[in-house]
């Protein structure tokens, strides 16, 4: 007969415990699972990406209905347990049901701590703990002009603040200590973090005390500080800490201190009752991070299965899940007489690292801006390694130890099997290697089998490196992978070497950079062709045979082998004459579909290859030129009507759109480039999801970059403000040229910016006026060669190549 297990709480700890239990003792337990939240187990630490819009709730669900059904778990979600009767070994549900258990597992977690300030019960004052809180924050952020105050400058508070800011709210963080995340960071790293958050538009107040929360009609209106200052808000998020939920356990007479007492086997003072997660106290310690919780879950499962296991407290490390703020902290970094510091600062790059050493052992590490070596340092701390031999180069990380190899793969290759790769799930290198050798040959498969990198995801790069080390040539690194099989060099390497060695032709590249194939392939040739023409517009001869068919034939190929033709309509403006010419062409060439594109142009779909030169000639005759709708180049500049017709429009957005399109058309870029100009913040031209978006405001023009609405949807980030139209055009051109000169082929601007950092871009395009002008000048040189209508050129010179070679006469074949 199956034994009965009742679990109270369906969080990450109990969920993991059940997974282990079903693995090691299948079909032994009949499980009933209570949860106060009306849902099952989800990845709570990923609520921040849900808040910021980078993930959906569905993506963070750990166990779906099918999982519970497959494992025959009786789910009682949305139900609390009213009482535990240890003598009778039963629990009583809220509705009065009495259920018997053989073993009881308590995983009631914790509740956010709400400071009992006057006004804390007003509507709009919330904690940041579960999906309801997250949804409430998302809802409020949808109100235009909504403001938020976050009390608490710790991990959770800052993630909440960053998420709300990304959703467009004005956010102020109130923090009682003198620097942010004071439990994890020292003052210097806290300063850099503060600077980065202020740069994102978040208002940060440190050493600030709250006095009361002010309301109006029962709703929160503002936070009053003890200085008397009032900070208006529509939402007040308290993220000041958590308290273990122990009420139920206390009432049941279990031993409870700050939380439920458990021994090394996670058993409470009652041998039939176990506890796990944030509600337990082990050897005087409480637990809030996921790594120790998962360790406990393993022990719980083993105890239930009557196997030997013991929970041991370990060092933990912290990372902040705010995209773009790289921060790592582990161990103890308080000052002390016997302790020594090694500090590395690079103010220009915003990098700070501090190592704390005691008795030749690393005991603490704080890093900001470059956290790539975080796990390596964390390993040294946990293992208590003697670092005296590498003290001189310790701060530079594993690549500089023993022989100064710059290859990060060697460092990973050198890790012992028991080195921990995934801190959240406690997965070591050996487990990952075993999974890879068992057939898990990509990140997804490794994640599915071992859970490594499946929680907070910050170790994804390391897992990929383990894949690369284990599989060798069979694995292509998603980052820093070679251009293609023709070379071992990355795109970035190739770009650098083309400039450094002044390589000005494809054969020169193949020869000098040791290409393994005679003349490349369909992957590298289009990239090389672009790099060469971008770097040497006056010297390099464009190679049509290294272009994808769309660019070679200046039309988009469709699934049936026909093509689509899109004439340029500057800024989306056209005339009756142009429309007549388009309609006539559509009739004459029997175009089956005429469609308005998302970029405000007209698309003639279904044109036969051999008709292309003729239809182009007709459109050219009406004054229309190629819209480059097929190109890795400037596509369209979308506009609204601005001051011409709109009662809200603040500037001539259509006119600026036309000027930008006339300046930029014909330029080739690493990927397609789309622009838009909106006449006011109502943003009718959808400028905030374009590669470059200009939003006109009363005081001028806000130029933002790095948006996208394709495979990924991204909102633009502000590049700079311009007071004149010319300045807006200059910023745009300089940005496009910087992108042309530096980005990897097929990276849209948002991907490129994510690699180099927006600050780096701003320094070159906005701050350094001399450099801005140099970029504009180089763009002009390129345009002098490439700003030509390719339709006209092909009609004049290459029309014949669009025709079949010859019609084979029937009689000749006889």
């Amino acid at each position, binding site marked *: 007969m199956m034994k009965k297990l009742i679990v109270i709480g369906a969080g990450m700890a109990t969920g993991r415990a059940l997974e282990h239990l079903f693995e090691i003792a299948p079909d032994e337990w009949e499980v009933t699972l209570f949860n106060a939240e009306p849902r099952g187990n989800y990845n709570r630490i990923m609520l921040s990406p849900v808040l910021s819009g980078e993930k959906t709730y569905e993506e963070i669900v750990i166990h779906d209905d099918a999982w519970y059904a497959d494992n025959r778990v009786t789910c009682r979600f949305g139900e609390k347990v009213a009482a535990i009767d240890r003598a009778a070994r039963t629990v009583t549900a809220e509705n009065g049901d009495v259920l018997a258990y053989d073993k009881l597992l308590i995983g009631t977690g914790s509740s956010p701590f709400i400071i009992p300030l006057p006004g804390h019960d007003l509507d709009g004052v919330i904690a940041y703990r579960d999906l309801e809180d997250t949804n409430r924050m998302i809802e409020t952020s949808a109100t235009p002009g909504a403001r938020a105050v976050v009390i608490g400058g710790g991990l959770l508070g800052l993630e909440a603040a960053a998420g709300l800011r990304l959703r467009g709210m004005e956010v102020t963080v109130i923090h009682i200590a003198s620097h942010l995340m004071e439990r994890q960071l020292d003052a210097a790293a806290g300063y850099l973090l503060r600077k980065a958050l202020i740069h994102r538009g978040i208002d940060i107040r440190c050493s600030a005390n709250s006095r009361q929360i002010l309301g109006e009609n029962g709703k929160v209106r503002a936070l009053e500080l003890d200085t008397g200052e009032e900070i208006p808000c529509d939402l007040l998020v308290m993220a000041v800490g958590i308290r273990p939920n122990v009420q139920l356990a206390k009432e049941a007479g279990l031993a409870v201190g700050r939380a439920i007492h458990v021994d090394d086997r996670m058993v409470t003072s009652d041998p039939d009752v176990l506890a796990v997660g944030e509600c337990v106290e082990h050897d005087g310690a409480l637990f809030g991070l996921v790594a120790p919780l998962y360790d406990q879950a393993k022990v719980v499962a083993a105890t239930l299965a009557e196997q030997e296991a013991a929970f041991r407290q370990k060092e933990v490390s912290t990372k902040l899940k705010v995209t773009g703020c790289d921060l790592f902290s582990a161990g103890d970094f308080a000052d002390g007489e016997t302790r020594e510091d090694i500090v590395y600062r690079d103010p220009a790059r915003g990098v700070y690292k501090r190592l704390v050493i005691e008795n030749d052992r690393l005991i603490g590490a704080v890093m900001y801006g470059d956290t790539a070596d975080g796990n390596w340092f964390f390993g040294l701390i946990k293992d208590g390694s003697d670092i005296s031999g590498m003290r001189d180069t310790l701060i530079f990380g594993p690549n500089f130890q023993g022989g100064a190899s710059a290859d990060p793969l060697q460092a990973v290759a050198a890790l012992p099997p028991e080195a921990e790769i995934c801190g959240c799930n406690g997965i070591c290198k050996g487990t990952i290697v075993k999974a890879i050798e068992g057939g898990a040959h990509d990140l997804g498969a490794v994640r599915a089998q071992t859970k490594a990198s499946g929680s907070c995801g910050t170790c994804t790069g390391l897992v990929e490196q383990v894949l690369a080390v284990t599989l060798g040539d069979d694995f292509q690194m998603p980052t820093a992978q070679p251009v293609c099989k023709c070379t071992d060099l990355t795109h970035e390497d190739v770009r650098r070497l083309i400039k450094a060695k002044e390589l000005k032709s494809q054969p020169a590249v193949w020869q000098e950079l040791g290409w393994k*194939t*005679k*003349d*490349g*392939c*369909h992957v590298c*040739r*289009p990239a090389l062709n672009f790099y060469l023409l971008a770097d040497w517009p006056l010297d390099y001869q464009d190679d*049509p*045979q*290294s*272009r*994808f*068919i769309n660019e*070679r*034939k200046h039309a988009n*190929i469709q*699934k*049936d*082998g026909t093509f689509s033709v899109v004439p340029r309509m500057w800024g989306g403006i056209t005339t009756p004459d142009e429309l007549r010419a388009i309609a006539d062409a559509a009739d004459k060439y029997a175009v089956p579909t005429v469609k308005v594109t998302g970029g405000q142009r007209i698309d003639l779909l279904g044109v036969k*290859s051999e008709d292309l030169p003729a239809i182009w000639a007709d459109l050219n005759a009406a004054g229309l030129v190629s819209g480059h709708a097929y190109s890795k180049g400037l596509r369209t500049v979308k506009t609204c009507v601005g001051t011409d017709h709109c009662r809200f429009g603040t500037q001539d957005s259509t006119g600026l759109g036309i000027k930008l399109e006339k300046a930029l058309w014909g330029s080739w870029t690493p990927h397609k480039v789309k622009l838009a100009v909106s006449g006011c913040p109502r943003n009718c031209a959808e400028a905030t999801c374009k590669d470059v978006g200009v939003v006109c405001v009363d005081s001028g023009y806000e130029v933002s970059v790095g948006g996208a609405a394709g495979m990924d949807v991204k909102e633009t980030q502000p590049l700079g403000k311009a007071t004149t139209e010319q300045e807006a055009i200059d910023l745009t051109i300089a940005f496009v040229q910087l992108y042309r000169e530096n980005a990897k082929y097929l990276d849209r601007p948002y991907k490129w910016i994510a690699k180099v950092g927006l600050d780096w871009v701003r320094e070159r395009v906005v701050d350094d006026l001399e450099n801005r002008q140099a970029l504009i000048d180089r763009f002009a040189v390129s345009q002098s060669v490439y700003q030509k209508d390719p339709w006209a050129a092909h009609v004049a010179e290459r029309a*014949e*190549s669009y025709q*079949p*070679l*010859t*019609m*084979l006469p*029937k009689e*000749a*074949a*006889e």
Partner: protein
Amino acid sequence: MTDWIDIGPLDAIAPRGARVLRTEIGCIAVFRTAEDEVFAIDNTCPHKGGPLAEGIVHGHSVTCPLHNWVFDLRTGLAQGADSGSVATYPVRVHEGRLLADPARLVKRDAA
């Protein structure tokens, strides 16, 4: 002995390029490599019917423009992980002219 027929000048095809030859049995793609070798294969990719003459030519291979299947121009066999093939046809260059074997380019009777 076959009487090869003239289907046009070699220069009608760009190096690493292709042109289509329309025949009774369908469209055939005639390729010219960087070294001026010529090959002829069916123009239609067996995967989703992509026009192979519009693909990028590299070495002795062409990549289909629709979904990047790669075919060896000498054998017509799909390369890499893909499996499938296209028919190949004899073509050659003589004194700057492209010559094709007409026997392979007409419909055959059931015999």
